[in-house]
């Protein structure tokens, strides 16, 4: 039953007399371990509490997204993107929709852009909240987690109001949204914007200047800006190291150029900086949502792309063209231009990219997801070498490695 283990880490072997006398022990952290928040295996060589080296095994939740994508029509790929980084599904959904819209060169109304920005920033808040509160849990502060999780539920309720689903939202369509934001949504969002900052500030006060928390997180798992760039880091982890690369600013999509926000950067690239960068990003996201709400343009909530955008149900029942388009879209028989497109959005963890090659068929010829987790998790051994085991656990949770995105 233990074939999957290396010889030197079979149960009972890791504490043999020789290893103890040699002062170097092998510790198998994972694949199922309470501290890892997911299925990751790390085989650590430790000298007492200090980590000398680490070897990772990934792929425990490999679900073959890229292969499935080659067999599904374009609108059926949205549910797959949900399950990449499931803490912030809407960002992935919208990223995919924008990729296809780029390929078919659709003109997107400003209103859709703004609606997308609101949903994406809500998702970013949800993503960062889970990461930061889990950092709290790993330092021993469970209170913050249970406290902000109530607010996360509020965000879920908002998503439910827009699309009916909580976590794997599948929100929006290629070309826009299935319906306009309802009055209930606006009311709930207003309540959220009023209530959340209070709770969030309390959460911030609980941890940010907490001596115990600071002592635990400062200098835990640091990485320099140069190394982070070498490793192709992106998102909050790169910004915590001091590089102000944010896709929203550098290559604005979905009208992000209209909004005024700050890209926070850290200096040390350690756990504390990653925590602080995410905290600040939550505040910036709130500000972006407010700006988008205030400046919400008039107009339609979908683009004029009948070949891709499912027509409203009343039209399907009453108009011939709508019925035909409905049928073609559902069966995945819409013609798609031949082309090659790369589009990226700023996901919860960094640059989520979609490299799409279309040969004109009903499904993409090749669709590759640039998954930020997969790319930056390989720097983990380097970041924890020389650190203690408890710091390694903190580093893992502060990098926000999401198994679904890591293993695709």
């Amino acid at each position, binding site marked *: *039953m*233990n074939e999957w283990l290396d010889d030197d880490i079979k149960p009972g072997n890791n504490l043999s007399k020789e290893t103890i006398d040699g002062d170097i022990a092998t510790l198998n952290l994972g694949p199922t371990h*309470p501290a890892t928040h*997911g299925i990751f295996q790390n085989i650590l060589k430790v000298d007492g509490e200090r980590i000398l080296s680490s070897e990772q095994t990934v792929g425990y939740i*490999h*679900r073959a997204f890229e*292969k499935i994508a080659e067999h599904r029509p374009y609108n059926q790929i949205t549910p797959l993107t949900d399950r990449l980084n499931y803490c912030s599904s809407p960002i992935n959904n919208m990223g995919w929709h924008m990729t296809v819209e780029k390929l078919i060169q659709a003109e997107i109304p400003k209103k859709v852009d703004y609606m997308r920005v609101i949903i994406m920033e809500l998702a970013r808040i949800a993503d960062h909240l889970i990461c930061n509160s889990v950092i709290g849990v790993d330092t021993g502060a469970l209170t913050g987690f249970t406290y902000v*999780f109530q607010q996360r*539920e509020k965000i879920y309720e908002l998503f439910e109001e827009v699309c009916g689903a909580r*976590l794997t939202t599948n929100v929006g369509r290629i070309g826009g949204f299935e319906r306009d934001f309802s009055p209930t949504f606006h009311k709930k969002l207003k309540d959220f914007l009023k209530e959340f900052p209070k709770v969030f500030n309390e959460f911030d006060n609980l941890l940010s200047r907490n001596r115990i928390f600071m002592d635990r997180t400062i200098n835990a798992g640091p990485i320099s800006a140069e190394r982070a760039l070498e490793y192709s880091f992106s998102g909050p982890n790169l910004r915590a190291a001091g590089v102000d690369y944010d896709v929203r600013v550098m290559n604005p999509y979905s009208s992000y150029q209209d909004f005024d926000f700050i890209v926070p950067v850290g200096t040390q690239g350690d756990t504390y900086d990653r925590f602080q960068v995410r905290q600040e990003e939550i505040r910036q996201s709130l500000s972006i949502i407010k700006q988008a709400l205030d400046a919400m343009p008039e107009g339609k909530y979908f683009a004029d792309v009948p070949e891709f955008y499912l027509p409203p149900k009343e039209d399907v029942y009453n108009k011939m063209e709508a019925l035909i388009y409905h049928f073609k879209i559902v069966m995945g028989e819409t013609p798609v231009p031949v082309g090659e497109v790369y589009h990226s959005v700023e996901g919860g963890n960094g640059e989520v990219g979609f490299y799409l090659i279309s040969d004109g068929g009903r499904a993409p010829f090749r669709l590759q997801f640039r998954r930020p987790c997969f790319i930056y998790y390989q720097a983990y051994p380097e970041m924890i070498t020389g650190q203690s085991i408890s710091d390694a656990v903190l580093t893992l949770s502060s990098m926000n490695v999401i198994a679904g995105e890591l293993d695709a």
Partner: protein
Amino acid sequence: MGKITDGKVETIDYQGFQLTTLDKAIGAARANSMWPLPFATSCCGIEYMATMGSNYDLARFGMERMSFSPRQADLLIVAGTISKKLAPILRQVYEQMAEPKWVLSVGACASSGGIFDTYSVLQGIDRIIPVDVYVPGCPPRPEQIIDGIMNIHALVKQESLRRRYSDKYKSMLNDYNIETDVK
């Protein structure tokens, strides 16, 4: 005196003691103090976290204490996709659990492979370990997960203490090629 009607034991009106069978007393104790082992791999794991969180509060059902060690767990909650690479690990975790044990399969992936009918995903955990309750959904809502747990409770309450010695149980484990130390 308490009456026994239709095999049911009624409580005695007198103060101080109650008459029931050992099976039921222990069943009730077990059901209300389960130690779950969350084997959360992906999206369903986040919904399971929401179930544990303050809004849905799993602690109401005596499940406050998550047991991350299989040796002290009663209920294995498999939430999320199980790939073929992970299958032997899940099986090992199940084998490490002590009797009595129950399994809750949360979500479409764990129950049947879900939308991931691919070369790398195990098409349902019931191919490698026996499952007591399936919770559908991709991912299921916390209410659904709680409903699944309620169903587990119902099972636990009515289960015989000697189930593990029964031929039926042994032959089921035998079908899965799982060794048991129960003689």
